[in-house]
């Protein structure tokens, strides 16, 4: 794979699959599988923000959880800083866990309501036995300052904060152990518009200050465009397009990417609405369409799209595309 392997990668995924078994009948036999992630190969470069977009159920959050080894893939390889994290024991994994953190979408349910802010932010420090109690307290106060919370609120509980402030608590918690990689899973989707901008700015400032690498998972195309360096588009478990941000938004190749961009509402009443739009719903990942998963909704579907899955291949400079419109190669690894 040419988009993998020039030495700057922090994370490399090779043919990663996550299939959840579905059981049925009296004997709970496996009757099928949800292919949440279906053969994803991807690299995240040090210091970059890789945007990952797609609709609900496309597997984008599962992909984030696989990288953190919160879930184990069914097949494939995940390398973090050159090490195969799936081969590591729990003890070997522990120092790596400090380096990768996650920020969740919902700042209401991702914070323990019975713990005060100091405990929430400092919990990782305690678990990893960092410093003395006083040093930990100082670090928590410092982190609160960094993310724009008032350190004197260290003894308050999550319900005493607004949604945006709670997301700042989640960010401070993620920063506590000085990570290299942060998986941002829809971090601003639950926030009000005026607060979203504050949190996006904060994430960008922190990236610069602490040299962070982000995997930014979101369904919001304009937020992803704003914050990312490269963008990957996912549909039913597969990456269908991947390119530098400017290239992807200016020259989307995959019919699905084109439809997504067309569907996104734009705050400009003068823009001509040229929505031909997609018909139909996202198919169930339990029983996805044969061949190219998108052929049931694709305005340009051809006969071969029904029978075989196209291979992800480079079409022009660093622009990766999985579609028969741009070549006939079949992906033999996908059933």
């Amino acid at each position, binding site marked *: 794979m040419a988009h993998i392997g020039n030495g700057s990668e922090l994370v490399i995924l090779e043919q990663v699959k996550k299939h959840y078994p579905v059981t049925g009948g009296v004997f709970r036999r496996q009757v099928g599988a949800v292919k949440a992630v279906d053969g994803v190969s991807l690299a995240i470069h040090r210091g970059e923000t890789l945007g990952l977009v797609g*609709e*609900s159920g496309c597997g984008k959050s599962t992909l984030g959880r696989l990288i953190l080894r919160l879930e184990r893939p069914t097949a494939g390889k995940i390398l973090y800083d050159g090490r195969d994290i799936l081969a590591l024991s729990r003890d070997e994994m522990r120092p790596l866990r400090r380096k990768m953190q996650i920020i969740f979408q919902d700042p209401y349910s991702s914070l323990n309501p019975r713990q005060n802010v100091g405990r929430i932010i400092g919990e990782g420090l305690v678990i990893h036995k960092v410093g003395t109690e006083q040093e930990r307290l100082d670090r928590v106060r410092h982190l609160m300052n960094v993310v724009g919370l008032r350190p004197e609120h260290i003894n308050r509980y999550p319900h005493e904060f*607004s*949604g*945006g*402030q709670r997301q700042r608590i989640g960010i401070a918690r993620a920063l506590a152990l000085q990570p290299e990689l942060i998986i941002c899973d829809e971090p601003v989707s639950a926030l*009000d*518009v*005026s*607060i*979203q*901008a*504050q949190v*996006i*700015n904060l994430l*960008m400032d922190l990236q610069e200050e602490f040299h962070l690498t982000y995997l930014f998972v979101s*369904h919001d*195309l*304009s*937020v992803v*465009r*704003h*914050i990312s360096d490269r963008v990957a588009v996912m549909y039913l478990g597969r990456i269908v397009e991947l390119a530098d*941000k*400017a290239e992807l*938004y200016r020259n989307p190749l995959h019919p699905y990417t084109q*439809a*997504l961009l*067309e*569907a*996104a*509402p*734009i*705050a*400009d*009443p*003068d*823009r001509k*609405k040229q*929505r031909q*739009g*997609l*018909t139909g*719903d*996202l198919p169930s990942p339990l029983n996805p369409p044969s061949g190219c998963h998108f052929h049931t909704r694709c305005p340009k579907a051809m006969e071969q799209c029904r029978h075989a899955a196209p291979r992800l291949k480079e079409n022009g400079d660093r622009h990766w595309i999985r579609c028969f419109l741009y070549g006939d190669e079949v992906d033999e690894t996908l059933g």
Partner: protein
Amino acid sequence: MTKLLEVQNLKTYFFTDRGVATAVDDVSFSLDAGKTLCIVGESGCGKSVTALSIMRLIPEPPGRIVGGRIFFEGTDLLTLSENRMRSIRGNKISMIFQEPMTSLNPVFRVGDQIAEVLELHENMKGPEAMDRAVELLRMVGIPSPESRIKDYPHQMSGGMRQRVMIAMALACNPKLIIADEPTTALDVTIQAQILELMDELSRTTGTAILLITHDLGVVAETAQHVVVMYAGRVVEEAPVKQLFHDPLHPYTRGLMRSIPSMSDDQRRRLEAIPGVVPSLLALPVGCKFNDRCRHAFDRCRAEEPPLTAPKDGHSVRCWLFH
């Protein structure tokens, strides 16, 4: 010509143990047949309470409509008996909510739920109502409606359920549909389908739409006229093009600047509005936006500005334009 809907000086307050929350305070706007009006604002700005007030669905106590009038086809809805109101609700005015799963009854088939509305308001009998239900589902773009009417809500996707809600809202050919964040829970490709459908319906049937949203993109694509709310007040009101070309209120301007652009690849900082949306129980004195406004001066902290119209058809509540 009388307006289809005219809300005048509406005040809806909530009386809680911790004080009185002025959820909607002196809100006025009007809507003509066949048009779409958007109320835009952030959480707690009073947009949903305004909608529920029009439907007379404010939970009482703790809430109460303490002032104003709501004229619908010339009749003040606030003076009607609960019985008369019930015959208007779902009939002449219907409502679509954000989460279709919680507004559909999970233990009844969707066909029966639509037919029930028709039997109640249109005096239709069983088979006739079922036929009309099929027709309505076809109209909102549900494939093979003859078999889908036998589905339970959980057997449908989110987009399908929202279509069922729209079909139900349309069942009695309402004059007005109030849609409260109807596409917020949906994916963008499905959202585009639903917005297109609502647009088509208002053009073909003349139904007026009051659309409540926090999404300026949705506003730009659907509305002819926009009301911006903040902390229970209308802070700006204008035709949609005017509002986007020449936003006056610092809050409206801030909102527009804080959304990332879809045509700009620069990784610049967004111009965020500082601070947080204030609690309705502890609003600042004077202009409710003064603590987050970079233009605020002494008068803003002392006295609340009135809604004035510095331009034709474009009003704003701000001392800068007074």
